[in-house]
């Protein structure tokens, strides 16, 4: 199917975009990579009067390290997560998740800002930003504000973005010595949306996991941290008993809904299997080896 007719405006600055937004009283959508918006318009799930193309706004580009934070411009494409040396060094969890995001050609166009703003419950990057304790830089006509990932994802496709606001960048505390990142998901085919997925970033001290953040995707209306599972691991060496304890604790973290293909019990089971694998991999870190000896 084809999209309903719309006006098209290419914004050259944030100010430009906000002015266009005001001109049509908000009956519009910002267009970044278009990899979710275009199909949605083709299916006529949305039919705005105007598309405001933000994909050529320079302020939304670039990956830089400043004030001990890695700043990733909203227009950074999924494919760049796989090739950027800065991402590999300072935010390897994003690099680990990227091969699971859609297919190569979609990764060539899709942007991380679009993925975060859309907040699809099955998307990889929103969950990863939770595990990374990221914060988002948001611009509106009144200026800039910052929101932590923790308070950003509110529900199904629902975020802290107010109408008209533009996500300009993702800020991430850089990966340090002793940090360890793992990501994986279970999907029917590579590139399909995951049945369940998770990313973990942990900090290793001696033979113990000093602290960690575990974030799941595809198990609820929004990405979610598994706090009980985290508590079962933090401060311990990754022994089989500790891993089993974390798997058991997941029941208190996740409450998957019924869906036609996967029952809640099966999804919880798969989440436990995945968590076991990921913690096992986290434990393969040289510093944790002692735990198995």
């Amino acid at each position, binding site marked *: *199917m*084809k*999209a*309903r*007719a*719309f*006006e*098209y405006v*290419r914004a050259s600055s944030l100010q430009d975009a906000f002015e266009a937004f005001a001109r049509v009283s908000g009956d519009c959508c910002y*267009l970044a990579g*278009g*990899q979710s918006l*275009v*199909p949605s*318009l*083709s*299916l006529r799930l949305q039919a705005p009067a105007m*598309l405001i*193309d933000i*994909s050529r706004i320079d302020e939304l580009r670039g990956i830089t390290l400043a004030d001990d934070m890695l700043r990733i411009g909203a227009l950074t494409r999924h*494919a760049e997560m796989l090739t950027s040396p800065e991402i590999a060094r300072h935010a390897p969890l994003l690099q680990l998740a990227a*091969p699971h995001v*859609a*297919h*190569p*050609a*979609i990764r*060539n*166009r899709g942007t991380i800002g679009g993925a975060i703003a859309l907040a699809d419950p099955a998307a990889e990057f929103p969950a990863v930003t939770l595990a990374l304790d990221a914060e988002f830089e948001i611009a509106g006509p009144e200026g800039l504000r910052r929101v932590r990932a923790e308070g950003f994802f509110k529900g199904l496709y629902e975020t802290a973005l107010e109408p008209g606001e533009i996500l300009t960048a993702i800020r991430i505390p850089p990966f340090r010595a002793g940090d360890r990142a793992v990501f994986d998901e279970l999907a029917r*085919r*590579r*590139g399909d949306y995951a049945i369940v997925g998770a990313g973990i970033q942990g900090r290793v001290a001696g033979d113990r996991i000093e602290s960690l953040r575990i974030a799941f995707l595809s198990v609820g209306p929004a990405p979610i941290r598994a706090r009980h599972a985290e508590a079962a691991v933090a401060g311990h060496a990754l022994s089989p008993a500790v891993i089993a304890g974390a798997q058991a604790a997941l029941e208190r973290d996740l409450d998957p809904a019924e869906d036609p293909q996967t029952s809640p019990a099966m999804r919880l089971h798969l989440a436990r299997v995945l968590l076991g694998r990921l913690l096992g991999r986290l434990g393969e870190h040289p510093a944790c080896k002692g735990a198995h000896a």
Partner: protein
Amino acid sequence: MSSRIAVAVTVNGQAISAFVEPRTSLADFLRNDLGLTGTHLGCEMGVCGACLVLLDGKAVHACLMYAVQADGQTVQTVEGLSESRAIADIQQVFHERNALQCGFCTSGMLVTAHEFLSKCQDPSRAEIRDALSGNYCRCTGYEAIVDAIAETARGRADRAGIPSQAEQAAKSDAEETPS
């Protein structure tokens, strides 16, 4: 109705200026306005991969962008890749290996194969399957397509005199084994 917008885009080496409706997809523009029907439309929602073209050298879905977004950029369709002979060896092996039956998916497969082989010279079959994850074929069962891409990669490496990973491994095994 929304007004038409000027677009300047280079398609297969040729500078094109046109006025398009904003909602015209790049795929419809290529097919209907320029007559380049090698770019196929299956699902029109990014799932089947029949509509892949190169935009500034990268494979993208022509159904997932509007022609106006390509303003100032360079598009290569399967026709352009074919005429420049950039994919001549892939096409030849697809033919020899029966990697197409109805041919509907083939232009997308060729664009994916072209981009993939430019980045990965000595792929494993698993890597090839991964690269094809966004391309549907309803006829071949994929096996022949994977064969064809693997054989093209080997052919290119042979012509460049580069041994494959498997050959290198065999060679180092032979060197390690005392005779």
